[in-house]
């Protein structure tokens, strides 16, 4: 979609010059209210249907998680966690896992292929497969362990937040399919307002630690959760408490690389000037030797 929406690109992988900035859209977000989710997997099915994906039939691992993990063919997966936050009070926490569409995407930062990962002005992070070289750096860059490299074509895949649907003012397929309204889509501002209402409700119902998960370590996300236990996001199948781009990725992709390029060019230039200043080392009787 990148070629059709080039005016709407806010960030582009492996690109050092600014993107077009004339047009500014509204930032969107998908809100996933874990407390309203019944775990029906309609979102998973809708995702498969709209994106025309068919994963292999998996095996049972003793939970409802099916498939067991995100794959190049499964861009969203329901994660079922059985926890006892209060003793003898079993809770079934069901989280729809997938790309969080970070405001500061680690995948985009670590990608070496120009334009293989873009972030649109509305906040959606998209993989542009025609530019993907299959190096797997996005996998190491992501703080949420989301991208998956296909074994068939060596391209990286993940949830696109239905950027094709959103581009023509439709809501993402998972939102469309959700029967309980646990998944909503709209302007991020509106989603956060709605989330705050849900949090207030949950607090009234006794979930004192309820809150919205919109982690600031990655600049906020364009997929936000309403969690009953926002103080312990790890309960939800290991949702990271304070995700941020690894310093290994940000340092190297930040100052270190231009400095290293400068060092390499500098070494050649230094050699050139050294030669011009000091001159070559010649053997004393070379004239005779060569004669």
């Amino acid at each position, binding site marked *: 979609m990148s070629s059709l929406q080039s005016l709407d690109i806010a960030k582009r992988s492996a690109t050092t010059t600014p993107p077009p900035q004339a047009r500014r859209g509204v930032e969107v977000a998908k809100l996933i209210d874990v407390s309203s989710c019944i775990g029906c997997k309609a979102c998973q099915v809708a995702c498969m249907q709209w994106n025309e994906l068919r994963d292999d039939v998996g095996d049972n691992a003793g939970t409802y998680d099916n498939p067991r993990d995100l794959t190049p063919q499964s861009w969203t997966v329901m994660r079922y966690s059985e926890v006892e936050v209060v003793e003898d009070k079993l809770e079934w926490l069901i989280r729809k896992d997938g790309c969080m569409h970070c405001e500061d995407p680690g995948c985009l930062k670590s990608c*070496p292929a*120009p334009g293989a990962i873009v972030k649109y002005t509305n906040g959606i992070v998209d993989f542009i497969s025609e530019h993907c070289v299959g*190096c797997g750096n996005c996998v190491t860059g992501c703080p949420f362990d989301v991208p998956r490299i296909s074994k068939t074509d*060596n391209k990286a895949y993940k949830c696109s937040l239905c950027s094709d649907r959103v581009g023509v003012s439709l809501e993402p397929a998972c939102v469309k399919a959700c029967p309980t309204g646990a998944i909503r889509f709209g302007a991020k501002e509106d989603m956060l307002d709605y989330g705050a209402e849900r949090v207030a409700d949950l607090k009234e119902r006794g979930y004192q630690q309820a809150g919205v998960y919109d982690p600031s370590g990655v600049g906020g996300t364009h997929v936000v959760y309403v969690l009953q236990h926002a103080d312990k996001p790890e309960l939800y199948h290991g949702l990271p408490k304070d995700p941020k781009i690894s310093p290994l990725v940000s340092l190297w992709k930040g100052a270190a690389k231009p400095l290293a390029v400068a*060092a390499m060019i500098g070494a050649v230039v230094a*050699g050139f000037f*050294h*030669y011009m200043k000091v001159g070559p080392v010649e053997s004393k009787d070379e004239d*005779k030797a060569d004669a």
Partner: protein
Amino acid sequence: MASKLLQRYSDGERMNHWVIALLFIAAGLSGLAFFHPSLFFLSNLFGGGVWARILHPFMGVAMVLAFVGMFVRLWRENLLTDADREWVKHSGDMLRGNKAAMPPVGKYNAGQKGVFWLMAVSLLALLLTGIMFWQPWFADSFPILARRFAVVIHAASAVALILGVIMHVYAAIWVKGTVRAMTRGTVTEAWARQNHPLWHKEMTRGK
């Protein structure tokens, strides 16, 4: 007095050296394509980004294998000695072109030995870390945190290797009469007497 020629490298050593050199250029240029966006155009030399990604590790492994051949031939002569420490102390004189102030050296001076070990260590690091994120073969076997370290160490080792090669090539250009050691295998006696007097003595002993 026509100075005689001394055999510095055998044909096998020279061909081994040039195999490494060509593979260094190939692996280096394809690697640099992914190093910084400004260098991505280099991937076109290999048929585009995907082909550069596919070919780079194979060329890198081939380079390491070729270097192992070189390492086996030359490592003993590159062991550091006390005399090398003295040479390092005078390296400022060397750079100013004051050859006379340098202590006499054997087949290799401390700078050459340093470059040899820099190449050996950085190639080992490149091999080990490169395997850790080699798509699609081995990357999945390593945890993501390990791969994050591997990518950074791989890139840093590559920079160290490239800087080493720049020094290596420059020294060969700077010290006249050196390049023929690798193109023809021989050097002049005058060159040996001036730059590697102890080696010269060794080579001409009993003659």
